[in-house]
């Protein structure tokens, strides 16, 4: 059992008659995947440290329906969406932050026409806002001068044109941000999107995550930063495949900041 973190649920807030400032949508990976849970906790620690009044849905949260929609199952997606929207609207949610670009994209872009209208931000945008508002400060010490390359998640970058928020955060660490040959709007996918995470790849001559990892390794990084739990898994597997896990860490931007803060 690690040190105590405060994770209030919406149900508890409701019982106390409080409306938190923001809902943290944890997502399936963030709730169940062992690696992604660490990202979830790192982000919560930052929220706690910045005294952000937030809550999670806990057991009332359910898959946004993203992988079903990308797989072509519009029925299942809309069933999930309508159910989630009922819960969210029931709690009168106005603002949502999420650590998963897939949840971010779906909640932000695909829920409105089904009746779910919220201000949705990715956690890198949220953290940058906290910094700009002076609610969070970063000590760069631990990562000073370290070579960090950022892998753009497709559903954050190309899909929603968010390229700078995660980079701004990495720069604040006094780290040396190095770009891969394909980055930003031309960033190469990690191979997990479009429900590929849940199936084997079609026959080919390489795995997509290996190709992307090679691009990352070309920058000679000490850390590969990611902003998506699925990209994180794919890049971690890629680094292991290249037997570089001893030298190169794959970390979420939230983890970088939480580590810098010694949280």
């Amino acid at each position: 059992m690690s040190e105590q973190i405060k994770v209030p649920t919406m149900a508890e807030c409701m019982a106390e008659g409080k409306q938190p400032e923001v809902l943290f949508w944890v997502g399936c990976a963030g709730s169940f995947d062992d690696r992604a849970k660490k990202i979830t906790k790192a982000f919560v620690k930052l929220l706690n440290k910045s005294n952000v009044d937030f809550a999670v849905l806990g057991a009332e949260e359910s898959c946004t329906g993203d992988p079903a929609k990308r797989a072509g199952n519009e029925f299942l997606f809309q069933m999930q969406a309508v159910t989630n929207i009922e819960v969210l609207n029931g709690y009168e949610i106005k603002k949502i932050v999420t650590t998963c670009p897939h949840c971010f994209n779906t909640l932000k872009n695909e829920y409105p026409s089904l009746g779910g209208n919220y201000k949705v931000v990715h956690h890198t945008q949220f953290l940058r806002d906290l910094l700009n508002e002076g609610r969070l400060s970063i000590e760069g010490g631990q990562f000073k001068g370290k070579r960090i390359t950022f892998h753009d998640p497709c559903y954050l970058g190309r899909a929603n044109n968010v390229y700078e928020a995660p980079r701004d955060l990495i720069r604040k660490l006094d780290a040396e941000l190095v770009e891969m040959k394909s980055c930003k709007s031309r960033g190469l996918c990690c191979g997990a999107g479009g429900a590929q995470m849940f199936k084997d790849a079609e026959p080919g001559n390489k795995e997509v995550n290996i190709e992307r990892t090679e691009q990352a390794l070309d920058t000679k990084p000490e850390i590969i930063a990611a902003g998506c739990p699925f990209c994180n898994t794919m890049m971690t597997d890629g680094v292991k495949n290249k037997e570089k896990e001893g030298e190169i860490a794959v970390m979420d931007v939230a983890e970088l900041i939480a580590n810098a803060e010694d949280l």
Partner: protein
Amino acid sequence: MEYLPNILFAIALIAGIGYFARNVKKLIRNIKLGRDVDASDNKAQRWRNMARIALGQSKMVRRPIAGLLHVVVYVGFVIINIEVLEIILDGLFGTHRLFLDIIGKQVYGFLIGTFEILAVLVLITVVAFWMRRNVIKLKRFLSAEMKGWPKNDGNIILYFEVVLMCLFLTMNATDVPFQELNSGNVISQFIAPWFEGINENTLHIIERTAWWLHILGILVFLNYLYFSKHLHILLAFPNTYFGNLNPKGQFNNLEAVTKEVKLMMDPNADPFAAPAEGEEDEEPAKFGASDVMDLNRIQLLNAYTCTECGRCTSECPANQTGKKLSPRKIMMDTRDRLEEVGKNIDANNGEFKDDGKQLLNDYITAEELWACTSCNACVEACPVSIDPLSIIMDMRRYLVMEQSAAPMELNNMMTNIENNGAPWPYNQMDRLNWANE
């Protein structure tokens, strides 16, 4: 007899434009086989996109070498066409260099001089393009779908342009009065000496021949467009106008599904209710797309607009790692199938007769569709706002919702979401366990 050239010219012009117009009508009819789609919103933004992306070539220059070469040919094409206007009027009225008297020697010379310089630049560029396809052999021009007609088509267009530019310069070089005018013959004055010693009569015949072949060549080229990838020179404009304005990650929510889902969630809905008045005969909407008629009109316009440059395919993560998927092939297949359906309609007095084929399987296989990561790299790469991903998604929807033909692992994932609200078999009640671990 005096008017014979004028009459022959008028006939050639009417035939050339008439046949093209007939094919344009066919093209519009084929596009209208697709589902209606509302793109009447944000007119100002749409015009801006057209101006920036099609007219301004903004996405072409993302790849600087190909982009700049393309800009030269594009500017050359657009500007040299001003000269075509004079040629047409000359041909119809039997005049010679009609604009010379109207705008005066100085301005006329400046215009023709500009055209001549552009003609040379276009020639140089076209040679570079030809080298890229046939000598340097860039990978994206050699993919599996580029064998046969698509490969020849690319080269034929280049040869056409060489011939047209050479005819234009020859026509100027052998035009004795124009050379004597000595204004605007910046390039052709160096070609004129090649014809020295030929008597004036023969020279005049060469000039006339070049003039006729040039304008006839343009009319033939105009009619070649419909059968070629080169349609993009016209369709890039409407295509960028109708391009997607939403964030790329936003996939449309199928309305037909929304209706059913709302009904399912409504506790007051009567599951045994008879269809409402007037709705009895309506065929239930098909979910997703298995053939071109299931796609929408913008998607079909996309297919006709594609010029097979292959930037989409070269950016595709699946294609880069050796999978069968090629977004360019998705667009080419869609156009080929649409043309096949169009010909079927022509042959059957305006009715489509089932030919036992469809876009799915006969052109695009499930293996290609399932290799897509939906990363939007192809959409981002397209210089004329084509969206191959939307076709892939619509076809996946058909596979899953009409045929239950998803790969087994995806079925497991979807069953998990249905049963426990996550793509993995974890209990929904355990969603907050991480907080206490």
